[in-house]
């Protein structure tokens, strides 16, 4: 990438980081560019998706007489149906399209989670109770599960276990919080590597000066 391009990239990074100081016009420049770019990107991808996933398939289907490919006309129609929500009279058509997407999503996540989260995790939880870990893990797990029991009578019968579950949950949250830090630091270090090279590095003192000037003028105004 040329020097000018890397300078622009670095400037955009600094603009976004300026939100750490306060909301300001430079942040809004970064915001506008990022939103515009990502929506534009999504639009392009959507157009190509419709072309590659649907229109080409329908064309192939018509050419070869493959019915399963011709049926790709249906999602195209359902997709167009989404736009009928602007018409009060035909809004119900768009609900069919939404129902379709929702049912695909919910069914896929039901079957995925049933296997991975429920059966897989129960299988993983079964362990011999002849070690300290085995006993501690089992009690800990049961307590947290009891914490997630919402019916009042049942949770009263469980006694102190739901409370213990809450404590175990806190240990979990603390551990998962800390464990993600290294990855996030790697990213900020990587981003800074892009800024802390010539000529981009000269933008840092400029940004610092702008902020100092802003602090001083704001203080004066406050007085």
């Amino acid at each position: 990438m040329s020097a000018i391009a890397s300078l622009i990239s670095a400037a955009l990074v600094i603009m976004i980081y300026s939100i750490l100081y306060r909301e300001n016009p430079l942040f809004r420049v970064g915001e506008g560019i990022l939103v515009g770019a990502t929506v534009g990107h999504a639009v392009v991808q959507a157009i190509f998706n419709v072309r590659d996933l649907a229109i080409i398939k329908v064309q192939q289907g018509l050419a070869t007489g493959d019915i399963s490919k011709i049926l790709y006309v249906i999602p195209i129609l359902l997709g167009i149906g989404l736009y009928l929500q602007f018409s009060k009279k035909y809004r119900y058509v768009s609900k069919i399209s939404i129902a379709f997407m929702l049912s695909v999503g919910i069914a896929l996540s039901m079957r995925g989670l049933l296997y991975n989260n429920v059966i897989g995790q129960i299988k993983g939880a079964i362990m011999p109770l002849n070690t300290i870990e085995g006993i501690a893990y089992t009690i800990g797990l049961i307590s947290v599960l009891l914490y997630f029991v919402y019916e009042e009578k049942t949770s009263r019968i469980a006694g102190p276990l739901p409370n213990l579950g809450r404590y175990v949950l806190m240990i979990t949250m603390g551990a998962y919080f800390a464990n993600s830090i290294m990855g996030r630091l790697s990213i900020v270090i990587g981003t800074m590597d892009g800024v802390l090279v010539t000529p981009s590095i000269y933008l840092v003192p400029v940004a610092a000066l702008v902020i100092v000037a802003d602090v001083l003028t704001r203080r004066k105004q406050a007085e």
Partner: protein
Amino acid sequence: MSNVSKQISSIVLVVVSLVILVDFFWANPTLKSLATDLNNWAVVIGAFALGLGAYSLLTRHSKRILQKKESWIFSVLLLATMFLFIATGLITGSVTSDEYNFIYALMVQPLSSALYGMNAFFIASASYRAFKAKNVESGLLLVAAIFLMLKNAPIGEAIHPILPQIGSIFWDFAGATGMRAILIGIGIGTLAIGLRIIIGQEKTPLGGAE
């Protein structure tokens, strides 16, 4: 009229989800290809949905520009960038062309990694603000976090080799207890909400709370 549509919607819900669910329990090549097709269909409809979003964004920002609302200039910038990407993508015919890669690497990559990396700064401010041992719960949260940090950073082992070991004990415990229970809970919860949607008890996501 809308009654008929409601019926169609419920039929779609039940049939489509049953196909996908049954495909999971019963390995059958026809069913499998049908389930894959249904999934692709959803992606196609989703692609059309993007037009709704783009339209909404376009009207909101062009209104701002036309009414010369405060800071309308940022709306101009937003729409200009959006059209730049659309035009580049459509003219070069792909999102992997050199020109497209150039503007993507120039704008989207630095901005998104800047935001992603900003998390590190927020971890710092949250460490100071939120990790206070006000009670047993927050005390445990804090202790677990500190030992995990000492496990991950090479400095922990340099201070004392036992520190990462304690961290590992916390980590294994957290994974085998709290995380496992959360995952089981989410699995059961998703099954429940899925059933509610499919049998038509949960109407809100279809936008029909009447």
